[in-house]
């Protein structure tokens, strides 16, 4: 390490827990924040603290939101009979940018992965199933990633949802194989949802 300090080490470790950040970038970011004018560092910590404190999971769809229910769930003009299930909030943002999807969402915040100890209860799937109880939902579109875990999750959900008498579809494979949804461009995603196949 460049500076022997437990506080600096703590900061680097915090950066390393972020997605896509390796040791080298973590050290570089920490060093930057410590050597730049104080304002820059404090602006980051204030912004982070305030954003984190004001954002929670929507009690309906689990998307990240400042208000509950989230603006999408609260929007009367959207089609509440159509739910798109995604792994991460990032996918909601990507699909929304496409602008052509008019239904609502359900964010799992993960996928089934026995190796990581993630099963139906960790994904709080009962929250999704509860939304299907009153008969208002016509169709669920499964837009989990095309990773092995994303596919297994889609398959598990498709059977569970079909048992509840709701139509299920899977997004078309316009999304690159093995890729996360966040890497697909918005046009591809819009096509993928439009070209979904009934399961």
């Amino acid at each position, binding site marked *: 390490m460049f500076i022997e300090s437990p506080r600096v080490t703590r900061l680097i470790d915090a950066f390393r827990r972020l997605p896509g950040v*390796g*040791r080298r970038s973590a050290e570089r970011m920490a060093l930057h924040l410590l050597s730049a004018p104080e304002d820059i560092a404090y602006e980051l910590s204030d912004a982070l603290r305030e954003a984190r404190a004001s954002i929670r999971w929507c009690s309906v769809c689990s998307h990240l939101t400042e208000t509950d229910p989230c603006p999408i769930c609260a929007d009367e003009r959207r089609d509440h009979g159509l739910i798109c299930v995604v792994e991460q909030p990032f996918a909601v943002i990507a699909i929304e940018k496409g602008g052509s999807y008019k239904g609502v969402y359900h964010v799992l915040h993960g996928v*089934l*992965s*026995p*190796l990581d100890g993630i*099963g*139906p209860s960790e994904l709080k799937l009962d929250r999704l199933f509860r939304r299907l109880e009153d008969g208002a939902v016509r169709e669920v579109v499964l837009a989990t990633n095309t990773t*092995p*875990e994303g*596919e*297994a*999750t889609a*398959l*598990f959900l498709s*059977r*569970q949802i079909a048992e509840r008498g709701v139509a299920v579809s899977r997004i078309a494979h316009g999304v690159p*194989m093995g890729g996360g949804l966040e890497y697909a461009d918005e046009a591809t995603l819009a096509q993928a949802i439009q070209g979904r196949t009934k399961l």
Partner: protein
Amino acid sequence: MLLSLHEVRGFRCLTEVRFEPAPGLNLVRGRNAQGKTSLLESILFVATSKSHRTAQERELLLHEAESFHLRTVLERRGTPVTLEANWWRGTKRFKVNGVPQQRMSDILGQLNVVLFSPEDVDIVKGGASARRRFMDMELAQVDKGYLNALQLYRQVLRQRNELLKRPKPDRDLLRAWEPQFVESGRAIMESRGRFLEELAAIATETHASIGGGEALQVRYEPDVKQADQLQETLDKYLESDLRRQQTTRGPHRDDIGLFIAERPARDYGSQGQQKTAALAMRLAVVELVRQRTGEYPVLMLDEVLAELDADRCQRLFLAIPEAVQCIATTTQLEGAPAGYAGDFASFLIEGGRLERR
């Protein structure tokens, strides 16, 4: 395929090496533990992202170092290609012509190499896992779809086995992994079947020409007889899977049947004869790669020459087509290999340093 330059920094005992092999035969000479095998291992690593000697990549580092760097220039169908492999504190990065690569399947197949090493006698003598390793490594180089299927299969198998370890695995959860298991398993079995069918014919001939004596027969022995029976097998063995807490049947239990004079090769003959059969298998891959890609791979022979008498050595060199670039290690410090009369380039490795001789 021609390897024209291979540079190594900090790989095992190789501090800094610049290796410029010639077309045809290259002899890498040196006493034991001077770095001959490490040089071949580093070429294998840049080609396949794996070592044949260890799964612990830290062992590939020079003492107390944190990184190693490999840079290789080759000619594929007359076009130069530069490959780089950098290992730094547990992460490895690969570049092709300076462009970083994310997928293993884009790295494999750039530089086709076939390595025969002393451990290869395990292909004949060892358990089924040694033969699966042989298939997987050679197939991944010539069949891009194979590696993708194999990676998917392995991941799905690990996930399913993890579920089976739970006290009462949920049937619906287990079923959620099955279509991917079946689909990737079928792709693997079809690739292996084709590969071994092609290989079998070549291996029998090669074995005869390098003096193996009685006929070598090679055949695919899949654990599940037909690729379209995978789902059926999963259903049939579900109770057994639950009891054993692992997936009992599938391509992860496949084997290659090797027979000499119609007897299992592992029970037949001396260590030397088994080694000849293993060598025939690797040499057969050389020809198979040419049939599939239109170009011979680079052949690397580790510690083979010393064990052969003049007659066998001569037969071996006759069996290797002239167009094949071959890199062979030897402890013989002077002169040509016994029974070899052709041209060759000669290098000496001493204490991790290499020079042209």
